[in-house]
């Protein structure tokens, strides 16, 4: 049975749908991210799951029991969930130990048991030595760890995180996303993680829900999302890509500067315009004409930038007008203006809406 089920959830403000027809099922112990640009409805969805606001329509169930509908909402304090907030929301009037112990106190555990569990979780997040400190004396990263400990120590049914890393600097952010995944692997808590940062979602999640303007664009594991984006939005939002517009005519799909056999491409149906996504990493670049299955397109380097970890080339097919973006390893050096061959595997081209 699914742990958490959202069925056709809608949140409407006036005539504006902040969240539209949102359906999602989480298996027990699954880590799912809600990913999308700012304002796409992630926080709204999360707060509906937490019970802070009722949905306008649709239902939310946990362990088969309905906890939210337009008419009835089990209040947050009765959902046995935990949440980590963007501002951490660490209470400044309580020490680290008191912050972490708060939820256990509410659950009426004995003092000794509270102490034992607080110490244990503080060990896990490496904050035991700061137990007696007040939050004002902690760095951002330490406050983040307190927030994690406070949320996990109560062993919640579902853990909710709303952009928990957005207030940290870049290095710490990178470190903490691994930490969050590590804690998940250790405690196996069903988790919904909200972020607008694709790499955060990729590192932490079992599955990612890509959202745009209140709607779900695609739900898939990270590698599928990257390799098989279903919409132009997803392809553009997850990683960098080339959008190639083609026309299906007479058994061929004609692109700007080259053509491919209709049979070698996915999703060719009917006639008319087709849109494909092709990752810059999936394109090969050679000086001599390649032989093999791949399409070979004679082209010219129109510009390039060196980014240390890779070369970023703009390559224009001789017969075309618009350049294609290609990433190669740092050792593959081509001069601007030189003739090269693009090596395109039709199977790497993904049909998008």
């Amino acid at each position, binding site marked *: 049975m699914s742990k958490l089920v959202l069925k056709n959830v809608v949140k409407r403000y006036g005539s504006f749908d902040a969240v539209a027809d949102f359906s999602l099922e989480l298996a027990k112990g699954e880590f799912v991210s809600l990913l999308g640009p700012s304002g796409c409805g992630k926080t709204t969805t999360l707060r509906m799951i937490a019970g802070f606001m009722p949905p306008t329509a649709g239902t939310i169930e946990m362990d088969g029991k309905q906890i939210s509908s337009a008419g009835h909402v089990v209040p947050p*304090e009765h959902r046995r969930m935990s949440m980590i907030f963007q501002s951490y929301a660490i209470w400044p009037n309580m020490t680290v130990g008191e912050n972490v112990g*708060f939820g256990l106190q509410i659950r009426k555990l004995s003092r000794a048991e509270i102490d034992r569990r607080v110490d244990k979780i503080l060990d896990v997040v490496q904050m035991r030595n700061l137990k007696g400190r007040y939050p004002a*004396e902690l760095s951002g990263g330490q406050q983040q760890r307190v927030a994690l400990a406070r949320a996990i120590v109560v062993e919640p049914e579902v853990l909710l995180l709303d952009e928990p890393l957005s*207030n940290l600097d870049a290095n710490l952010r990178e470190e903490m996303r691994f930490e969050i995944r590590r804690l998940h692997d250790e405690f196996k808590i069903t988790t919904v993680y909200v972020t607008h940062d694709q790499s955060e979602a990729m590192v932490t999640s079992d599955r990612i829900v890509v959202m745009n303007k209140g709607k779900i664009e695609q739900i898939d594991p990270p590698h599928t999302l990257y390799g098989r984006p279903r919409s132009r939005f997803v392809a553009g939002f997850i990683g960098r890509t080339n959008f190639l517009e083609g026309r299906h005519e007479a058994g061929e799909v004609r692109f700007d500067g080259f053509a491919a056999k209709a049979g070698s491409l996915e999703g060719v149906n009917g006639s008319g315009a087709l849109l494909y996504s092709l990752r810059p990493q999936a394109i090969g670049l050679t000086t001599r004409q390649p032989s093999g299955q791949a399409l070979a397109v004679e082209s010219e380097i129109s510009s390039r930038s060196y980014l240390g970890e890779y070369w970023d080339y703009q390559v224009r097919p001789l017969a075309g007008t618009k350049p294609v973006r290609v990433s190669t390893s740092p050792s593959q050096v081509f001069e601007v203006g030189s003739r090269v061959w693009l090596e395109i595997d039709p199977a790497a081209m993904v049909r998008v809406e």
Partner: protein
Amino acid sequence: MTATASTLDTAPARTARAGGFDSTWLLWIGIIAVLLFLVVSPFIYLVITSFQAERTGEFTFANYATAYGRARYVEALLNSLKLGAVSALLAGIFAVPLAWAVARTDMPGRGLTRMLVLATFITPPYTGAVAWILLAGPNAGWLNRFYTLLTGAEAGPFNIYSFSGLALVIALYSFPYIFIFTTAALELVSSEMEDAANILGAGPWRTMWRVTLPLALPAILGGLIICFLEAIALFGSPAMIAIPARFNVVTTQLFQFFGNPVRVEVAAAYAMPLLGITVLLVLVQRLMTHRKGFVALTGKGGERRPILLGRWRWVVFGYAMFVAALAVFLPYVFLLQSAFAKAWGRGFAWDNISLQNFRFVLFEHATAAKSVLNSFLYAGASATVAVFLTLGIAYIVARKLVPFGGVLGFLCVAPFVIPGVVLAIGFYAAYAPPPLSLYGTALILILAFTTRFLPVGYVNASAAIRSVNPEMEEAVRVLGGSRLTALRRVVTPLLKRNLLGAWLLIFIPATRELSAAIFLYGPNTKVASVMIFDMSEEGNFERLAALALILQVLTLPLLWVGQKALGRDFMLRRNAT
């Protein structure tokens, strides 16, 4: 002027090297001299005088023996403490629910409530006291009359001339302090802090007790302390209510020591506990709000969503309007009635309406109109002096132009712990005798007001200066402008609004200052507040009401200017600490 310019120009680089007597020192000495005159010397004279024998000036403890030698005098002291405690508590009961409702809930009429608190805040306590004499005077008071009318009883139950009456009146006009402090604190508590407790299993009530209230508690206690100090330092309301009720408090007792003949030595000795308690409690308040566990965190996502009260919102709104009725609606209705009545006791009848009170106050009375003019002149002068003095000092302190700048800052805020009555006695002791003989002059009133409101000026000025990035001045100087040019062309224009705000925050309370003025005014320098006080002693409530309303009406345009320049809440922002 040119000397000052070059001083300022070279100051930062060269002052650090000690030894040389350059012009920076002159500047420092000048400011120190002014502050010594305004702050230190009255204080020292107060202390010295309390140990001096009358006339001979010899050292003696006799003043203390006299001041505390009678049970009556000690009782007045205890009365003050009791009064402070009761009115602070009452003020808390009025203010905290209102602050919570306005800052954190979806109560209807939150803007209206804020406006009414502001109306309370700008009502001088003695005006409130007069209104409540009209409302709850024994027998003739309106509330009593309504009571007898409704119940047919012989007499109404309300008597303002009592300890509880006085405590109520003081609380009604000091609760805005707690309101200001508490809303400011609650506005720092982000909704996420409450949500975090919620989702961990704490219901709304537990969240309020465990998270919201503890976070606001230092502010609430701070507000209570300020109210307590207000109550024990207040002169007008106790003089109007306690004296007819036949009990004394410290301030009324001090006033009696100042009666004929003036016994300033005994008064100085008697003022010491008032000063001591104030200093002590202000320290306590500081310690409390700076305790490490109570530093409010701010961060991204610190948005606040109002707590939805459901049906309770009308109950809470009802309470807000009840408090407003006590502090604003009822008092002003009956002040108006009285001001436009031939005799207030005859009530709301067409033939009882007249403009004669206004005519009398404005044109016929020998000094009433002049007293209003005096109030505005003196307040304007002290606000101007205080604003520019504190701006200069704040600038010098912030940019570290002189060594030991911190001392200057400290002297500027020190008057905060000196109650107006005590300050006046200090000024009297220091500047009434020759050679200066300032007693009764406009100058002594202006200087006393300046000193009283120096802390407000300084707090505002230093906050304003800190908001100006030094790089903006450096940009001027890199382009070849002097420091003075930078000050004139960049800093002052940038701070125009802040300066105007500070000026109003001093000017408005200075126009109604009574506690210091009552000890220092002379026959030609009577101010409006003293005039109102005199009229209340004569029992002239119709004319008094007219004068009090004129004073209030004249304040309105200033308030309007302040709100235009600085936003709706400029009076209600936390500015005293």
